[in-house]
């Protein structure tokens, strides 16, 4: 699987983290593992932990400590009301950006297909997100 563009990833990191903790309250290292399982192998702890701290400082995430049997208490994050609002806004912005870019940039051609000036495959449908 090709690596993701670091600059693009940086822009989407907040959205990814908000979405992950919105789906399931979670703590730093577990979030890193989940991201890596989703194919973001280049997202390391050194990038994710400060991003979580920033989101918490901005009031988009709140945290609580949960005792752990194996070591120190873990800090579990979940979105605040402002975090949920930001998640919806960022999701809308993201899909708007993807749709706008897709209008100009055709999907990459399959190397097996014959060369053509037109897109080899139809544009993917952009799923609509319903607000909560």
């Amino acid at each position, binding site marked *: 699987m090709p690596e993701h563009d670091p600059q693009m990833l940086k822009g989407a990191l907040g959205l990814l983290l908000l979405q992950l903790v919105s789906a399931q309250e979670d*703590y*730093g*290292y*577990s979030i*890193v*593992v989940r991201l890596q399982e989703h194919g973001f192998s280049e997202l*390391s*702890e*050194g*990038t994710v*932990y*400060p*991003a979580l*701290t*920033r*989101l918490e*400082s*901005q*009031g988009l995430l709140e945290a609580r400590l949960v005792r*752990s049997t*194996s*070591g*120190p*208490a*873990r*800090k579990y994050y979940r979105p605040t009301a402002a975090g949920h609002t930001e998640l919806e806004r960022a999701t809308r912005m993201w899909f708007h950006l993807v749709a706008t870019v897709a209008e100009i940039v055709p999907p990459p051609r399959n190397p097996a297909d014959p060369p053509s000036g037109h897109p080899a495959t139809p544009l993917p449908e952009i799923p609509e997100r319903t607000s909560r």
Partner: protein
Amino acid sequence: MTFVFGLGQSLLVASLLLAVLLGLSVTLVARTWRSGRSSFTDRLRIGVAVLRYDGWLELHGVGRWRRRDLREELRANLDDAAERVGTAQAVAALGPLRRMAAEAASGTETGPRWSTGAVAASGVLIVGFLAELIAIIGWTGAAEASGVGRVQGGLPLFPGSLATWEQSGQGFSIALEPGWLVIAAVAIAFVLGSRPWLIASRREHRARRIE
């Protein structure tokens, strides 16, 4: 002979004290009283990484309580990661701790850096003290050559200083008031190092969060 024995004794006591201090520091860093599956070396490695992270956060002006939270969070995450991939890899995955601390501090409320100010002030105080020491050596020579029993005057280049040289029996005594220049330099170094005006930005940050 007695001198050599005395020196040896002093060295022994100093070495013992140093060893006790070192042992205490290592115990605190590794948190040996904590029960867990990781080895002493692993705990020490994690402890050192957490301490280094804390140091960088401190340099970025992150407050004491916030730093404690971030330290504990990192320690818990490292413990978890170490169990899964090993301590060396868990610590390496953090990347440069300096960058990580800078990024964590960028959204965190920062305030005055009192410890940086204290270090800067101490540095200036030591330099000022050494400079006055050098100045007083020359001044003492002149006072001694004057043949008067008691000489009092200011040191050149140190306005406000007052040195007193007095002959007593076979030897002499010297008293020195450092003067306002050194005190002012120490105060300026403390203010520039600690940046007390960041109290205002911390209040602003809190106000923004409440909004």
